[in-house]
């Protein structure tokens, strides 16, 4: 399967990946010029943390082989696609119980900030060859790899 690889030492916390994710998931258009940063509905599915030594670390869903968010999901909204390897989220099935947020050991997940209803979950930009976060990363801290499962 394909994964977004992270070289944290190349990350300069420019938040390009965060912007890229917001651009891709913006309902009003997929260009950077369509993105209104004051619109609370624009949220990213990834984030960048700064650790105890002030080093940045991009936190992006791994689409785990043994995904805790799937194990823990009681509505069937979070599923592992055995063909593509992706962990997919169906917001129509989701009951907003937040057990996935509670269970992801890497702290990748959160609920949307407006209604606290929908899980902000990476979809690897479904139809794109290269996910937007990777495309937006100017230092190549993010890049695509094909990994054996």
């Amino acid at each position, binding site marked *: 399967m394909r994964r977004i690889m992270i070289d944290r030492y190349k990350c300069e916390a420019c938040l390009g990946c965060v912007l890229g994710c917001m651009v891709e998931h913006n309902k009003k258009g997929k260009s950077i010029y369509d993105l209104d940063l004051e619109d609370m509905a624009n949220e990213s599915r990834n984030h960048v943390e700064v650790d105890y030594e002030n080093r940045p670390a991009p936190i992006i869903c791994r689409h785990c082989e043994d995904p805790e968010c799937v194990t823990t999901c009681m*509505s*069937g909204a979070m599923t592992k696609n055995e063909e593509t390897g992706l962990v997919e989220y169906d917001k129509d099935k989701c009951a907003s*119980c937040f057990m996935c947020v509670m269970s992801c*050991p890497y*702290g990748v997940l959160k*609920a949307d900030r407006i209604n606290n209803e929908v899980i902000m979950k990476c979809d690897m930009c479904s139809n794109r060859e290269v996910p937007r976060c990777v495309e937006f990363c100017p230092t190549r801290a993010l890049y695509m790899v094909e990994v054996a499962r």
Partner: protein
Amino acid sequence: MKYLILGASAAGINAAKTLRKLDKDGSITIISIDDKVYSRCMLHLYIGKKRSIDRLSFVEEYFFEKNNINWIKGRRATKIEPEKKRVVLDDGSSHEYDKLLIATGSSAVVPPVENLREGKNVFTLRNLEDAIAIDKLADGSERAVIIGGGLIGIDVAVELMDRGLKVDIVEMGPNILPMQLDKRSANVYERELKKRGAGIFTNVLAQKGVLDSNGNIVEVVLKDGTSLSADMVIVAAGVRANADFIEGTNIKFDRGIVVNERCETDEEDIYAAGDVCANKPGIWPLAVEEGITAAYNMAGLERKIENSFGFKNSMSFYGIPTISIGNPNIDDEDYQIDIYDDGKVYKKVVHKDGIIYGAIFQRDISYAGVFTKIIAEKIPIDTIDKNIFKIGYGDFFNINSKGEFEFTKREYGLKII
């Protein structure tokens, strides 16, 4: 190989799914009293008319056909005969197995309160039939008394109030949700409930129900003398394992079936998973994990329960989410309690000597899963020199060659980079 699974909920279904993944040709049969697959965690949404029965399912459409699983519904096991390797059902039929999984869950118990077990309008919420019955009676009812202010009790309270009933909640603890929350975080929900007309009675037990001539409870009297009138009573005060049929076997039972980390019982080729098992909180994620683990071992592949930490709960009422992990109510001055409280967002972390034992996150639950991991595995944080609420996976960041995250090993009291 002939696999037999008793129960079609979190543990049973996930075991069957995993068995099919691991063994393409084996015969898999599920026997369950349930004739539909549904998530027990969503039953209250049926009562609130927010989901139809179909939308309570947690499996894909045609799950049984797609996975080639034989399903015998509406039947329960009455006896296991390990020496003959077969299970006898309530219709007298018997089914042989090579590997058997017991995943029959638990049933709600009604405490020995006078007239509570006799009342015709007294319900628990465990099965779809319960939800259907509550939904029906709610139509002609004006007042409901809920005995037990835990997660299920509050779930039902919210939905019944949503349907216009006047609801009174009786909880023996100092506040609602006493297993998960502290006073501060529980008060937020109590306030929301009261705002909508709920009566909340804490630190008190129900003493008796008053029956009318039709055998319905019309009044619930509390130990402090308070009397609450009722058209229906919901009891959400604990569960008991469904395992009567193991009588006569060597399966060890101690308020639940006793299993090892491979989900094996004391009887050869018999496994157990989910709420029917002993000594742990009955929560969905554990049941699934156990179902998967049992399936691996049934298929001859070694797998152990890595983490049976079950003291974690998430909830959301009236748009306010909360996650509770470990024990956030430790009352011991040896422990340090850190609190963030801006009047809305509330966060609490209880720790001692660099180990976190409990936490609550209310209104802002983003990325809280890291704390579940840290608390469950007692990962030391004493060398992480930053605001405790800002601790995140970034502090443990480690990515392997396959692009998977791992936790950097942090030795207690040592700084390791």
